[in-house]
Structure formats: structure tokens, C-alpha cells
């Protein structure tokens, strides 16, 4: 895509010197096409993705007086505010247990990500490298479990959680999130391991490492981009998870951000819009930070490129 910037120069070099009108025509056509197929769609896409965040932000700093004013009121300016305020953030911190939710979410997300990464690493490696009977079937069935929708799976899981008396504890989520995170990590890492040349590991085994040693010393360090992207994905998925958190946790101080914000800040038909949006904003900050921090690893992780 960034190639677009160099485009106009290219046809001039390529076209035959004896046909200037044709050359002009080509240049104009290229520019026109670049606008229609590149700039305009890209702009629309950026607006489409960023607007909700902007709306979240502007709502969270808008005073109540402006928030609950009729759209037809004089001076109504829905897209900006002249009286920004931090009241909603203060209310969120003081009147709800938001900091606790944040901590709960963080703890649960990190713990379930670590568990899933550990299992995913070993399973992904085994499926990518070891020859054992039914390896293919096992790989497919792991993938199939990922396809079972959580909206169905929470019913039997709720029963299990109750039997183990884990209801209303963080362990209810830490142990159930891997049901969809492990298959996900396994498949992503399996794909990544397959792009790493087998010879690297064979060479390490000849050099004196056991299979496990070669895996830990050679394959894992090379797979860091893949491991990071699997980790980021797993972290985001568990950070944003809603259904299990809603079903398995009941007391307000145990809740995670997505559930807490929705259940405590919508009372009946009253929406505390300012605090809701402040909560949503603070809830998405850690995820955004994690993403922007590792974005480069993340891209190579998904495209899976190992250059010897």
C-alpha cells in the first residue's frame, strides 16, 4: 500500500518516449484510481474505526448538563464540548469499585493468558513437529472446540463450576477462559512453528541439545513474535470476555470491567452515560497500550516470517 506514493513517477519511465499523449492519459488514470481505491476508502475506514473511541472520550468529559440535553436544544453541539470536566472519572473511582474491577480483570486476564500460552506452546510444538498417531485428528479436534460458541458452552461449564465450588471466585474465569484460549494459542503457534525451518532444531540436536533443549533454546527464542501475538490476543480476548464473567461472578467487588461497568452503571433504564464511557475508556487503555507496544512483533507473528 505505501507504494502508492511512488506510483505517478513509474508510468513516465515505462511508457515509450514517442507517445506523450498516452503517457499523460496513464498518469491521470493512475491518480484518479488512487483516490477512488486508496485514499477515500482508507479515510472512511479510519473514521469508522476511530469514531467510537472519540465518542467514548467526548462523552466521558462532557458535563451532565450537556449530556442529558435534548438534541433539538439551542447550542447543542454533540461532537464537541466547551466545558470539559473530569467529574465522571472521579465519580467512577469514588462511587463504584472500578479500581477493583480493573485489578480483577488484569489478574484474570494475565493468569489465563499464561496458562493458555504454556499449554499452547507445548501443544503447538507437538502438533507441528512430532510424528505420532492421530496427530492430524487431534489438531482438528482442538480447532473444533474453538468453534463451540461460549453462549452454549457456559451452561455445562456453570454446572462444573458449581460442582467445584468455584462460583464467584476469579478461578472460575481463570480456568474457563483457557477453553477457548488454548485452541486459539495452539493453532496460532502451530502455524508459526511450521514456518521455522526444521533444520535449525535438527542442527541443535546434533550440536548437543536434547529435543526439549532444542525447543527451549532455539525454537522458542525464534518464535518470540508468534508467542507475543498469541499472548496479546489471549490477553485481549480474556480482558473483553463478557458471558462467562457475567454468569460465574455475582458480587460487585468480584466483577471484571466489562461486566461491572454494564451492571453497576445501568440501573433499570437509567444510563450513567458519563461514567459508563469513562469506565469503557479506562478499560480499553491497557489493551491499546499492549497493542501499540508490540505492534511490530504482532504483525510478524501473524505473517510468520523467519529469516535465516
Amino acid at each position: 500500500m505505501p507504494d502508492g506514493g511512488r506510483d505517478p513517477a513509474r508510468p513516465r519511465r515505462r511508457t515509450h518516449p514517442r507517445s506523450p499523449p498516452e503517457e499523460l492519459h496513464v498518469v491521470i488514470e493512475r491518480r484518479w484510481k488512487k483516490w477512488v481505491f486508496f485514499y477515500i476508502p482508507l479515510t472512511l475506514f479510519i473514521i469508522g474505526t476511530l469514531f467510537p473511541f472519540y465518542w467514548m472520550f467526548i462523552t466521558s468529559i462532557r458535563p451532565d448538563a450537556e449530556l442529558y440535553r435534548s438534541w433539538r436544544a439551542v447550542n447543542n453541539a454533540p461532537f464537541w464540548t466547551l466545558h470539559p470536566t473530569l467529574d465522571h472519572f472521579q465519580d467512577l473511582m469514588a462511587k463504584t469499585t472500578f479500581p477493583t474491577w480493573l485489578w480483577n480483570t488484569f489478574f484474570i486476564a494475565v493468569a489465563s493468558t499464561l496458562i493458555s500460552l504454556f499449554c499452547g506452546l507445548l501443544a503447538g510444538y507437538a502438533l507441528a513437529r512430532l510424528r505420532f498417531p492421530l496427530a492430524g485428528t487431534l489438531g482438528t479436534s482442538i480447532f473444533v472446540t474453538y468453534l463451540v460458541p461460549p453462549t452454549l458452552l457456559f451452561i455445562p461449564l456453570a454446572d462444573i463450576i458449581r460442582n467445584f465450588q468455584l462460583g464467584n471466585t476469579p478461578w472460575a474465569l481463570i480456568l474457563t477462559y483457557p477453553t477457548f484460549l488454548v485452541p486459539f494459542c495452539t493453532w496460532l503457534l502451530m502455524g508459526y512453528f511450521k514456518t521455522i525451518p526444521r533444520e535449525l532444531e535438527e542442527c541443535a540436536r546434533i550440536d548437543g541439545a536434547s529435543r526439549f533443549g532444542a525447543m527451549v533454546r532455539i525454537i522458542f527464542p525464534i518464535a518470540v513474535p508468534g508467542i507475543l501475538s498469541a499472548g496479546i490476543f489471549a490477553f485481549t480476548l480474556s480482558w473483553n470476555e463478557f458471558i462467562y464473567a457475567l454468569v460465574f461472578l455475582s458480587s460487585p467487588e468480584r466483577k471484571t470491567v466489562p461486566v461491572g461497568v454494564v451492571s453497576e452503571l445501568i440501573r433499570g433504564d437509567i444510563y450513567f452515560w458519563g461514567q459508563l464511557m469513562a469506565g469503557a475508556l479506562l478499560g480499553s487503555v491497557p489493551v491499546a497500550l499492549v497493542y501499540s507496544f508490540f505492534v511490530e512483533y504482532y504483525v510478524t507473528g501473524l505473517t510468520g516470517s523467519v529469516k535465516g
Partner: protein
Amino acid sequence: MAQVLMKDLNKKYDEVHAVKDVNLHIRDKEFIVLVGPSGCGKSTTLRMVAGLEEITSGEISIGDRIVNDLPPKDRDIAMVFQNYALYPHMTVYDNMAFGLKMRKFPKPEIQKRVQDAAEILGIQELLKRKPRQLSGGQRQRVAVGRAIVRHPQVFLFDEPLSNLDAKLRVQMRVELKRLHDRLETTAIYVTHDQVEAMTLGDRVVVMRDGWIQQVGEPLELYSKPANKFVAGFIGSPAMNFADVTIADANGVVWAETPGLRVRVPPACLERLRPYKGQHITLGIRPEDLHLAGGADPSEYTFDSTVEVVEPLGSEILLDIKTGPNMMVARVDPTVRVKVHESIRLALNPERLHFFDMKTEAAI
């Protein structure tokens, strides 16, 4: 330093029988080359010696130890791979030191060995770089360096020069040869390139479809191929083959085919006796053909038409047609011939090869 023995070695994958009854005695300090077309089982054989493939049946011993059930790390071997297999996250130094670190060598010893190897290969300046900052030739050197620091009993090379460009390949070939003369370590080298095989090997093993076809010194393979496959595989351009009939006319034995009638040299008469009246394959190397002069006896000359002329500078390759047979002749660069010209060629009667039609074995 060690000899390597393979006894009735077999490798079967689910459906494919990749290596069949391989018996090979590789002597101490010998440089042996396994050569053959792709899929002939040469790499599989090497990987079984390395311990990277399980052995279906048979026995491999290195030195006087049977290594069938030993993991690769305990076989005291070093291997150089086609794609170099350098660890991308380590510097050149760490790449070379890895094997020694794994074997818990003391640090000064590691340092000394890596320095020595780097000096031999001329890569001292590269030690701090990462593999991706190196050119193909440099990577190849590092891969070789990583193998030699260990002072293993056996070197294994799996098509190590295939990823290099033609010029570098020739250069590295010479260096490998020199290195082997210096280190005097037993080496097994796999390649599909017969030139590499001929130039590097003390002995060459030609393989096809999992079977060993012939084991011998390079010139022995060239001058006395055991069968038609070896004859066609070794030598470039390949040997010319023609299906001929052995006919007896007034006490003189001829090998005949339309357009070509060659008298069977007296030395071969005895061997060809059982084939009288039958079809066999006649083999002539391109370099054993030359433009006929007055001195050449008529029973060893034949007429042909030039189809393509390929001047290579040091020699000229002529693609010629005689009767239904296409042949290649390698002639002097001074020869002046044109396409579609009729020429008379003479062959060297002492260097004719005959092969059985059915078994393809040399007669």
C-alpha cells in the same frame, strides 16, 4: 576420527521404501560422496547416520560403537545443512560456540576453538554479526565453522553448496576439499551434482531409488560404470546411448543400428558372444567422438548431420543426428562446422561401453 559402517540399512516410510539394503564401509579419514537424482535415498541415508531418522532395519556404527539407538547429540558428529540452519537469534560467535556450550566446555577453550575455526575460514571479522547480516557464502562458512569447532568424528554434509551461486559454489568446493585435507576427518557428503561428487570424493556412491548402484573412485565410475544408469549419470554432457544389434558377418562382429555400424573391438568379442543376434545398448561418451580424419579406420566412423552447434570456448558441443539416434559430440574448439552440415565422425574403439537391454548392467 572414525570409520562408519552401514549394514543392511533399510528405511521405510508408510508407503515408500526409501533406502534399500545399503551396505557401505566408509574408511577412517575418507571423504565419501553420496550422489544421485532427487528421491534416491541419499539424504535419508545421511539423516539416519545423523540420528535424525529412525532406522527401519539394519545397523550403523561409527567408530566401534553401534549408534542405532543413540540420540544425535551422542553420536559425535557434525552436520552442515543446505539452508545453513544458522540460529537467527544468535551472533556468529554464539552460533559456533553453541555446540561447545551444550557440551559444557570451559570458556577459554570455547574461545580458542572458535577463534581457530574462524581463522581457518577467514571469518574473524564476522564473529559479532547476526546471520541475517551475512551473504550466502559467509553463512556457508559459518555453518562449516560451527561444524569444525566441535572436532567431531564424522562430518555430514547435506547438499551444502546448493544454495550458492555458480561461481561461489566452485570456490567453496575447493575450500571444502582443502579443509578436509587439513582436518583429516571422515566426511559423508550428499549432493545431486555429479561434478561436486567427482571433484570432492575420495570415493563416490551412486544411488538410485534407494539402491546403491556403484561405489568407486571417481575415475573408476567414469571409465567403468557398472550399469547404464551410472554411465548416464556421471559425466557431462551425458553418455550417448544407442540400441544396436550384434551381427556376425563373415567372422567380423558388428554392432548395428540404422545410420551407425561399428565393428566390435576384439577386446570385447568374448564378452559379447552370448548376445549375438540380440539387441543391446551401446554407450559412447561425447568426448570419445571426433571429426574423422584420414587415419581413422572406416569401421569406426559414421556419417551424421549437425543439428545444433554449442560453442563453449574451450570446446564445441555438436548435437548430431545419425539415423534415428541423437548424439552429442564434444570436439575441438578449432573445428568449423555449420548447422545442417553432413560430417563424418570417428569414435574411440577402446572406450565403447555395452549394456544389457534388460538388466542395464555393463557387459
